[in-house]
């Protein structure tokens, strides 16, 4: 008999498409969290596969800290246009202006944590009953326990001790008034899988992911790019380096890595040899041992 085998990327793809379709079928108004980062781009690409030749049946949602690399926004807008989907933007600045979020102060101030507030407000405003996120379980230890269908109470909170058991692929999206779901189609993907898949499928990614020259400073053991939002403090020395980013988040806390990898092929080779996780380049996770767990409980992605 013929050997009916899929390689692991094909299996992950099939699983993610299944989850995306379950989301469309089980919820009234899902949104797809789109940051312009590679995971959300892969998720959006999979969504286009899942529903072709129809359009992706949910709007994209961008929770915007205002501290973006200009390349990200440019890419986002181009992408949204190409796929013909609606874009909903939630501005952290609006939450700050409304007084529902307060800007951090101090040397390491970041708007990262404030995203949770804006996300919950956006969910409320738009009546989303589910938000698709590109989170992967290999990213961080609190995420390792996340479900595909992650239930949030009416305060948007995650309760890791009382998660719904998730058996086989029978996802239970049932919910009460005001409750909603975060859904993670890429749960079982690793950073390596994402890069490999992008390469195999020829998926276009923002230029920030590939080696380019940039002015950086070293802060808290990370290389931070000089942007409108990050300027050198006294004693910090600005230097020009050939860098790329492994994740793209808020420009104030996303570290660059020194790299020569200029295309997907070279990135894949570099990642497979890398000895540091991609989260290792993010200041937000370094704050405390349970930083991610705390943020997730409060409604973070």
């Amino acid at each position, binding site marked *: 008999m013929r050997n009916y085998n899929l390689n692991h990327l094909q299996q992950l793809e099939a699983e993610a498409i*299944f989850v995306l379709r379950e989301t469309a079928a089980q919820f009234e108004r899902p949104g797809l969290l789109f940051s312009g980062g590679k995971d959300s781009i892969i998720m959006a690409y999979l969504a286009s*596969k899942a529903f*072709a*030749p129809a359009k992706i049946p949910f709007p994209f949602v961008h929770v915007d800290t205002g501290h973006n690399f200009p390349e990200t926004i440019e890419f986002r807008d181009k992408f949204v246009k190409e796929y013909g989907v609606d874009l909903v933007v939630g501005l952290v600045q609006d939450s700050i202006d409304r007084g529902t979020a307060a800007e951090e102060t101090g040397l390491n101030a970041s708007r990262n944590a404030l995203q949770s507030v804006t996300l919950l407000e956006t969910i409320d405003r738009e009546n989303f009953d589910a938000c698709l996120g590109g989170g992967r379980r290999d990213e961080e230890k609190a995420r390792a326990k996340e479900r595909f269908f992650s239930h949030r109470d009416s305060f948007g909170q995650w309760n890791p001790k009382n998660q719904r058991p998730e058996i086989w692929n029978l996802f239970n999206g049932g919910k009460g008034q005001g409750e909603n779901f975060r859904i993670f189609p890429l749960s079982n993907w690793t950073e390596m899988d994402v890069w490999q898949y992008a390469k195999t499928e020829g998926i276009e990614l923002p230029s920030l992911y590939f080696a380019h020259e940039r002015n950086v400073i070293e802060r808290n053991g990370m290389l931070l790019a000089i942007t409108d939002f990050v300027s050198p403090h006294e004693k910090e020395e600005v230097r020009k380096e050939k860098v790329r980013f492994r994740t793209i988040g808020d420009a104030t806390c996303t570290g660059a890595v020194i790299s020569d990898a200029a295309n997907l092929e070279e990135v894949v080779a570099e990642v497979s040899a890398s000895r540091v996780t991609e989260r290792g380049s993010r200041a937000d996770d370094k704050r405390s*041992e349970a930083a991610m767990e705390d943020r997730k409980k409060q409604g973070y992605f």
Partner: protein
Amino acid sequence: MDKDYIEMDMLRFTTAGSVDDGKSTLIGRLFHDTKSIFEDQLEAIEQSSKKRGDENINLALLTDGLRAEREQGITIDVAYRYFATPKRKFIIADTPGHIQYTRNMVTGASTANLALILVDARNGVVEQTRRHSFIADLLGIKHIAVCINKMDLVGYEEEVYEKVLRQFSDFASRLENISEVTFIPLSALKGDNIVERSENMPWYKGAPLLYHLENVYIGSDANHVDSRFPVQWVIRPHSDKHHDFRGFAGRVAGGVFKRGDEITALPSGFTSRISKIMLGEEEMEEAFFPQSVTIQLEDKIDISRGDMLVKPNNQPKSSQDLDARICWFSNSKKLTHGGKYLIKHTTKTAQAMISEITYKVDVNSLRKNEQDKEFNMNDIGRIKFRTSEPIFYDTYRRNRNTGSFILIDPFTHQTLAAGMLR
């Protein structure tokens, strides 16, 4: 490198054992020895170990992620972990060993190809070992690797290994689904028989654990005979370009579908032929488990979510009266005779009413108990129930995808039970 990567397949396994048998240490060890721990993770673990006053770096901290777990030093929920070798990508469902968390083991086992069951060499087969093997078997896992851990504490004696082998084989004969049991003596702490064959146990002729995980053959475990396609979603683009397009989106739950195949749609019973099979924009000749595809038919027939496409000459069972083994998950709701729940089976949701609570199983003795019929959290047993509409199914033994279901509380929406149809 690249070519290897594309030829990699995937193995999902679950870990089980009593508390302190060394599950977390073993997973940490597999990561460490396959170089899957990154420097920043190692650094973080080192710091945590120091803070806790551990003597050595505690590899268990890698999997024990949540704060409560680190504080209590126990694993309290299923954690999923990933590592890869050039041969395979591995997904580990690390499940806790406490009695009160049986449902987590059921969860982890439900999608696993293999169960890795730890035995402390000093204690041999204990009640928990029987319970975990029983659950693995119940959930249809075909491969078990019994890891006899902490061999360093018993002088790497062959006798100890032989004893566990005898004890286990004694009750393994009562397990129904498992087709392969492998015994591996090892030390998670010292790294014996993990990646390399241990020099401390020259009497052991088998392969080390990683070799076994990389090579265990799972290709014939899935059902490629009975073609089943539960419809998940109907694609209708409503655009000028694709005006008449109607595609049935879903994931093949068994067997193979080819272009040109004759199909029957259930429950309507209408037949048609497959005109196209698509994945995104790409057309394909055939689709098989577990592919997610879109199927187009030659004729316009009314099909919606919850329906199933099958082959006319190989149809699933169809009934409103069902018989199943279940594991009860809820700690607040009890299973009651006459109780009404929602059932989710493939992509279909219907109502179910319990018509008989047949028996409970004592998972330690594997005996049936027909007197005590009160199901509490983690109880396993057999029930009969009636559904509001016919369910199209195969027995769980024949097909995990079309033989499994969950029961949902219609009021709280909690998942109450996992079930396996007979």
